């Protein structure tokens, strides 16, 4: 087998922002070898290793589990470890940091606000009274597991925050992934913390900000369906409100 005389290449237009050097971001074009089995993250690693070591971006697992390599690829939020060059070749690929987040440097976004919201929803099992270890685990049937399992697959990649126009317009909006995670625990038969999540999920900056664009579910690499979780919560919240209007209902 002979060596090909000309190596096929593909262009990457990469968002650059170096706060100590420039006030406005720019795009830098890199030409990288084109390989059928390469993903955008492979191309970025090639640039970082052999062309330009100053390029900054986050990544870890390369296999769609860690959720750290999310970026805008040709305007769509994607895990770059799952965005194959062959799906774009021979056109250039534009790589930007996730939108709706402040940019720290190049492709690295600031996720402080996301982390604050994530914590606010208390994404852990809350018990009114913890039972002693000696009494064993909190048991659950497969049917009870099925109720929330889909919403538990979230890897916190934040692609849904970049896909959601409401996140972009309303700074306070708790956002798709966190609301889905709140539902994940509210629907868990072992959990008793619903009241503690009430304000975050059902308050003014929770589910009612959502206008059901549905793009969060379209871009989700784990098929979590945050839009579904939010609409379910809306139905639940509306029903509970209706009950308070009944003469025998409880007003809070």
């Amino acid at each position, binding site marked *: 087998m002979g060596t090909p005389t000309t190596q096929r290449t593909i262009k990457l237009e990469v968002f650059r922002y170096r706060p100590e050097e420039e006030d406005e971001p720019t795009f830098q074009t890199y030409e990288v070898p084109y390989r059928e089995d390469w993903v955008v993250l492979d191309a970025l690693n090639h640039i970082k290793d052999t062309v330009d070591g100053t390029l900054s971006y986050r990544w870890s697992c390369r296999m769609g589990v860690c959720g750290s390599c999310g970026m805008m690829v040709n*305007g769509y939020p994607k895990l770059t470890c799952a965005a194959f060059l062959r799906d774009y070749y021979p056109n250039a690929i534009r790589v930007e940091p996730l*939108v709706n987040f402040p940019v720290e440097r190049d492709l690295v976004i600031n996720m402080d606000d996301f982390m604050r919201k994530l914590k606010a929803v208390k994404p852990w099992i809350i018990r009114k009274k913890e039972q002693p270890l000696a009494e064993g685990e909190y048991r659950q049937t*497969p*049917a009870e597991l099925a109720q929330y399992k889909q919403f538990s697959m979230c890897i916190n990649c934040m692609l849904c925050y970049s896909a959601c126009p409401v996140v972009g317009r309303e700074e306070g909006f708790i956002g798709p992934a966190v609301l889905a995670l709140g539902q994940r625990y509210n629907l868990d038969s072992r959990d008793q913390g619903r009241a503690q999540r009430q304000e975050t999920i059902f308050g003014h900056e929770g589910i009612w900000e959502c206008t059901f664009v549905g*793009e969060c579910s379209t871009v989700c690499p784990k098929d979590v*369906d945050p839009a579904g979780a939010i*609409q379910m919560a809306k139905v639940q919240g509306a029903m509970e409100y209706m009950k308070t209007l009944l003469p025998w209902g409880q007003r809070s």
Partner: protein
Amino acid sequence: MKPPLNRNMGSTWWLSRGAYFLIMLRELSAVFIAAYLVFFLICLYKVGQGPEAYGAYLRFLWSPGMILFHLVALAFALLHMVTWFNATPKAVRVWRGEERVPPALMIGPNYAVWAVITAFIIWVVLK
């Protein structure tokens, strides 16, 4: 140290993606449906005023502009209906043990009820 760079999405974000544009059309559909209802309520009011007022209003409704409006409103109403019908399984999940009832089974009854009500209205109008 500089604070992180904020990139605002701008006012034309809804033109950037087909899915966003379709959502904006869905939201806009409410305006046309509300306008249709206003014309319809005026129609009921005219019925109360007597045959002459009603006849004059019907002639107005049959003017080319109003026919065009009703066609556009119909298109928006269908878009509104189809998008929300298809969204039903997102909001309502029904379980049979560990299995979720397939989304298509959740969407179907909406269309069935719609067909029955439409057939009833057509029957009332034509009889």
